[in-house]
């Protein structure tokens, strides 16, 4: 009984997602075509990847505000590298992007776990620092389409069976880290630390490792995302992915991840991502005035967080009721 209520959160999200698709589909039948669906998936893929990283960070009761700046910094770095050394093979570029992201994320993680600075402060600071470095290394200039090779620009688009590399990478991220969180020892320790840090310390969980790991993984993911981002839009700019961090956090929150850490599911995050992704795409297609887009996004986040809280409270009430019996 109780379990059903808890599971219902994902269910509600799924139902609203489906009804959203139906409503939009009724207004614009083209929306329901397979081709369109694939486009939406491609478009949401970057958000999904990065959201999985953010999800892990929020699980340990952290938050990563450096996401947008990190995407921009890795994107700009690899684009510049590619521009000046076109000879570097693409797979090396891919590895480099992950490495740069790994370093940026590790910096966050080390400050949080070793120096014990609150994550919100660390990432607020590194957001400014990373964004600043984007401008410094590029000197304010852009890397444009013709400065990228075809192989570079087609990186996110290629793929097989009609599934783009971009989507493939996102799906892989979701599956790998979904399994990691649910079935591995370290994954469960992430939940444990987020749920009760003191208890976790007392049972000998390596807090330093568990508090570092999510930032490191989130960094590596957004590193790769940075490369895919600049390749997809064939342009690296100083304000790439500006404000992206808040959209990513919003996707997690809509997906039912508790901002206090310790609870949330990969499935929920994926649904949250799809919800925001579809809203972003659907609005332009049902010809809603573009000026309403941001307000609607805000409204949806608001409704989602209220629904989450109300459901949580109902569960609590049921528990007390049962205890009194």
């Amino acid at each position, binding site marked *: 009984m*109780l*379990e059903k209520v*808890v599971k219902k959160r994902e269910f509600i999200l799924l139902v609203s997602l489906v009804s959203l698709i139906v409503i939009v589909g009724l207004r614009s039948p083209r929306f329901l075509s397979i081709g369109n669906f694939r486009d939406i998936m491609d478009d949401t893929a970057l958000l999904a990847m990065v959201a999985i990283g953010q999800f892990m960070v929020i699980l340990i009761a952290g938050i990563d505000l450096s996401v947008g700046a990190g995407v921009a910094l890795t994107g700009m770095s690899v684009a510049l590298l590619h521009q000046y050394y076109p000879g570097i093979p693409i797979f090396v570029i891919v590895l480099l992007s992950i490495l740069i992201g790994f370093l940026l994320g590790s910096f966050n993680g080390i400050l949080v776990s070793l120096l014990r600075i609150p994550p919100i402060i660390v990432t607020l600071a590194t957001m400014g620092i990373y964004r600043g470095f984007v401008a410094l290394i590029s000197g304010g200039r852009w890397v444009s389409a013709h400065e990228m090779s075809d192989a570079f620009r087609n990186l996110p688009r290629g793929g097989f069976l009609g599934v783009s590399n971009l989507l493939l990478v996102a799906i892989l991220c979701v599956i790998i880290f979904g399994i990691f969180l649910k*079935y*591995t*020892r*370290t994954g*469960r*320790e992430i*939940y*444990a630390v*987020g*749920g*009760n840090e*003191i*208890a*976790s*310390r*007392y*049972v*000998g*969980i*390596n807090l330093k490792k568990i508090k570092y790991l999510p930032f490191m993984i989130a960094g590596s993911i957004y590193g790769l995302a940075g490369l895919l981002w600049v390749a997809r839009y064939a342009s690296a700019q100083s304000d790439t992915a500006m404000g992206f961090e808040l959209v990513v956090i919003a996707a997690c929150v809509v997906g039912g991840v*508790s901002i206090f850490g*310790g*609870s949330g599911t990969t499935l929920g995050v994926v649904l949250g991502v799809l919800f925001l992704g579809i809203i972003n795409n659907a609005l332009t297609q049902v010809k809603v005035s573009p000026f309403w887009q941001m307000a609607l996004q805000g409204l949806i986040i608001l409704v989602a967080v209220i629904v989450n809280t109300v459901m949580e409270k109902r*569960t609590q009430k049921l*528990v007390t009721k*049962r*205890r009194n019996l």
Partner: protein
Amino acid sequence: MVTNKLLKAGRDITSKSEPILELRGICKYFGGVHALEDVGLELYPDEILALVGDNGAGKSTLIKIIAGVYQPDKGEVLMEGKEIEIRSPRASMDLRIETVYQELALVDKLDVVENIFLGRPLTKFRWFVNRKRMVAETVDILKRLKISIPSLKEPVQNLSGGQRQALAVGRAIAWSGRIVILDEPTAALGVEETRKTLALIKQIKEQGASVIVISHNLRHIFEVSDRIIVLRGGRRVGSRIKSKTNIDEIVKLITGSL
């Protein structure tokens, strides 16, 4: 020197065997605060030792040193006569010392099974958790300890206080600790739940482990313990065999009016 005398006295009373765990001259400072000053403790096999004292007397600090949460600034720790260092909670667990904390070391949002195996899950292929075996073992443990919990898949935040306490104690027993430390196991429990918990503590002893228990409730202490050590202001002020003392004397030791 006073402590040494007391130590000797303690040993004389129950000299039938060597202590399984012994702490000598432990000091611990937090900044300028003396949390512990030259404190000794000895724990014998098959013994329930009670640690009493007023708030701030140093009980929690002392057990956290045994549990590896804190490192002493001075003093030595001996296990079965050999000097050891307990550098981390993990090291303490490896020595088969199990601690049940006052703050209830449970993760509310995780379920019963995961809480029983918190920090040391059964694994397969090295990295993956073996959920199936963990569930089976949990059922076993709960049956053995006669703890009834409606659903193993439920987050423990949905359990009652007594169930949670039983779970925490059960976890310590399940890991067949040689030494089980209980910090305020009966605080915030109802009458019936307290009775069950005290029975559980006796059960630990029957399983062949030694117990250190901290409590403010002297009636509970007198019900379960064999021996009582009293701390005051970070110092050890007395050790008494339960059968040779009474609540009155202990209260006087605690308040310093003896």
